[in-house]
């Protein structure tokens, strides 16, 4: 039997206090689309970082073979030479540079000592076309949406003559259309002989695209399933990932919603002076006590801006309109005022403006409510430890200790820290912006269960989500936002995917 294209044997990788991978074996055949799934912290990203030389030979034990030949990667360049390209969970493009500069960054085409710009632009044009991207290669990255940026990343990888393309959660920040594009592109690349390894928490897309699926759990390989033998379906994947069966990933809740309006905005408009345009127009919505309201819509429809304009307006929009909490008029000029009035906002971008990555779990959980654990400005470190312990346990955050630096946690566990931080504020109105982005099914279930528990206790939740099943599964009522206006409202009984999409895209 011929050697598989890629073989990783008995890989073990430890960090101080954490065994991220223990004796993992992983095989990928030529021309496959191989999906890698597993819970947050299972070791998926770490395994791919080993493969791509981020963790060089010697920092792990085990072997990497390509076409049966042992490979020793001392750095990323070495793995690139062997035809491996990785696209990380977080994008690594330079926003101020153009598309073609980014594509050939650190891989410039030279003419003598100089960069050959003519050739660069020409070749960039070719790869851009190859990934089906319809942009001017001279456009700056920052002018493109996330979906297009993702494609630029792939174009960058393709420009290097890649044999194995690794994508770490590429669709977690993409809307359905862009995700679909990306999957089609992978199929197209496959027909041209490119092998892909895809990490994803979106099981639907895994099922749609995978030839094979490998499941990791707690740093170990659980199994490899073959889609062509009909082994891949959602319940099986979930069972292997989580180690138990989850029948309904949207847990039932007792509908306790009352008609008491807790939070309301009326005729709410916002003008963004930085962009020079109106971003929200005449928005009216309300949330009742004990209710989960879903804000559906496409990415960029203005939902995050709406949340920020409510939450103390940190970006200094010019706002008109009225905001009431329990019928009382409020005006927030800073997030601190919103927090004091019982509003909390869990950001969609945990690394950018959610967490302080260089600080530990404990400090991140308490930072928004130090008042509660301090006395005349002096922090009570015992109280702090108890609070951090409490939320780490109740949210099931996987970390060796509450003194672990948040940067070292896996993506999903970072999200839970971010959630814990805002639960400790004990808000009445909780705004969740894409609360389960990059989170595994098990953790999603946990977060949904927590949401249910919170509304049962009388909180109200505004959930911004681009995942329609989540909106439909969790909300009591849905508003659809489109280009800064509320395009429609419906109780959950009347909501369907088609209805929402129609309103969102018109």
């Amino acid at each position, binding site marked *: 039997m011929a050697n598989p294209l890629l073989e990783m044997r008995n890989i073990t990788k430890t960090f101080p206090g954490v065994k991220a991978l223990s004796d993992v074996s992983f095989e990928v055949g030529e021309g496959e689309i191989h999906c890698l799934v597993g819970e947050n912290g299972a070791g998926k990203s770490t395994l791919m970082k080993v493969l791509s030389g981020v963790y060089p030979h010697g920092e792990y034990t085990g072997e990497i073979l390509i076409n049966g030949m042992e490979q020793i990667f001392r750095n990323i360049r070495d793995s690139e030479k062997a035809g491996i390209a990785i696209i990380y969970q977080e994008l690594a493009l330079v926003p101020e540079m153009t598309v073609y500069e980014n594509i050939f960054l650190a891989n410039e085409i030279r003419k003598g000592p100089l960069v050959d710009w003519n050739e660069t632009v020409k070749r960039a044009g070719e790869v851009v076309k190859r990934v089906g991207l319809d942009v001017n290669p001279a456009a700056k990255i920052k002018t493109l949406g996330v979906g297009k940026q993702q494609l630029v990343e792939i174009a960058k990888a393709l420009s290097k003559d890649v044999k194995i393309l690794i994508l770490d959660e590429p669709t977690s920040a993409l809307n359905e259309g862009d995700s679909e594009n990306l999957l089609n592109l992978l199929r197209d690349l496959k027909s041209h002989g490119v092998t892909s390894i895809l990490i994803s928490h979106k099981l639907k897309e895994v099922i749609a695209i995978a030839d094979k699926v490998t499941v990791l759990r707690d740093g170990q390989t659980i199994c490899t399933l073959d889609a062509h033998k009909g082994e891949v379906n959602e319940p099986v994947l979930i069972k292997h990932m989580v180690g138990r069966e989850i029948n309904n990933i949207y847990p039932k809740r007792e509908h306790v919603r009352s008609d008491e309006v807790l939070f309301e905005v009326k005729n709410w408009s916002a003008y963004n002076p930085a962009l020079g345009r109106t971003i929200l127009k005449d928005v009216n919505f309300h949330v009742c006590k004990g209710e989960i309201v879903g804000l559906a819509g496409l990415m960029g429809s203005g939902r995050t801006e709406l949340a920020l304009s409510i939450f103390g307006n940190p970006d200094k929009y010019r706002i008109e309109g009225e905001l009431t909490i329990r019928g009382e008029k409020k005006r927030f000029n*800073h997030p601190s005022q919103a927090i004091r009035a019982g509003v909390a906002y869990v950001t969609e971008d945990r690394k950018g403006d*959610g967490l302080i990555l260089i600080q530990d779990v404990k400090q991140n959980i308490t930072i928004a409510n130090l008042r509660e654990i301090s006395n005349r400005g002096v922090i009570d470190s015992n109280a702090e430890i108890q609070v951090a312990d409490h939320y780490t346990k109740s949210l099931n955050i996987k970390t060796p200790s509450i003194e672990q630096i948040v940067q070292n946690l896996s993506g999903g566990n970072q999200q839970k820290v971010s959630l814990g931080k805002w639960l400790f504020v004990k808000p009445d109105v909780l705004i969740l912006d894409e609360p389960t982005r990059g989170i595994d099914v098990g953790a999603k279930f946990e977060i949904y269960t927590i949401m249910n528990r919170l509304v049962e206790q009388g909180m109200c939740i505004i959930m911004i989500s681009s995942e329609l099943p989540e909106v439909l599964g969790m909300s009591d009522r849905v508003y659809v936002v489109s280009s800064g206006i509320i395009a429609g409202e419906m109780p959950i009984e009347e909501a369907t995917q088609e209805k929402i999409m129609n309103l969102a895209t018109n």
Partner: protein
Amino acid sequence: MSSVTAAQKAKSASFFNNITRVLRENIREYGMFIALFAIMIIFTITTEGTFISSRNIVNLVNQAGYIAVLAVGMTLVIVIRHIDLSVGFLGGFLGAIAAIGMVQWGLPVWIVIPMTMALGVVAGILTAFLVAELGIPAFVASLAGWLIYRGAILVVTEATGTIIIPDETFAAIGNGFIPDIQMGAFLPERHKLTLILGLVAMVALVISEIRSRSKKMEYNFDVLPTDVFVLKLAFLSTIIGGIAWLLSGYQGLSWTAVVVLLVVAVYHFVTTQTVLGRHIYAVGGNPEAAELSGIDVKKITYIVFGSMGMLSALSGMLFASRLRSATTTAGTLWELDAIAAAYVGGVSAAGGVGKVVGSIIGALVMMSLTSGMNLMGIGISYQYMVRGAVLAAAVIFDVATRNRGK
């Protein structure tokens, strides 16, 4: 018998393993202490003991004082991702104002000192205004201050040149020592109060370390193995005791040292134990996240620059007091010495990282270099080069150990 020695061997081997492991894991934290220790030993050898003489150590501490207080303030400025270049000449200028206050306006010392510090706060708030409200990069805003205060010193000293300060109380801050207590024939050659204070500090250190360790063990946090912990306590106690012993052999603890110790104690407490301190490090670690967590980033900027201005004033007065005069060149290059001390002490330009105590050690390292090389008779030109090399080495060390942590 052989089994006993084998067990002993195994024990001592694990002890050394423990030490090397702890050192490796905490190399960033202990690196500066070790460097300071090494520098002191080297100079003690090359100067045949003169460096470690009581008189020289007392002088060293007094000379490091005005840079040390600047370094404390600068640490926080760098932690929140800014820089303040104006502090040197601001200090020089405010030192001159203090002199004028006493000499020309006839104000008493106890009014001049708080007044000058208040002026420092105002100056710091002005810089913060440019940075926080108008969004001007701190480098540029404080460079403007640098020029302005440079000019201001010249203006206020134009008529008189150097201003002599006759006030003895004021001069004592930079030149005086704490009084001694009489104990009859007990240790007649030594400054007893200094020794007692050293002893108190040692005991306080040991108690607080033991307390925090047992608290950590209660929560199952990682702590040092017992043997290494004891060694660390012994090491720190020896240093404190040694310094107290050295100081007591000359005239004891100087008032400058008292001022520096107070500043460090207050800032260490604020940065490690209070909400304000946490907010400062949060702003440095991720300003956007801090703002969304309800922290007023502007307010923190005002506070940090305000405190920097206040410490600049203090630094200027320490210097003027030491010279018993305000000179036209006071303040030259202080800001760079303070920045260098902070970086040697482990702050990170990326923000959110850096300890007040580290910067003080950094200041001591830099001042020890100057003092030691002076004693060895090394020319000023080579002194600059050596200090530059040490700064570069410290930062390289910092970056190298940081990457290893990943």
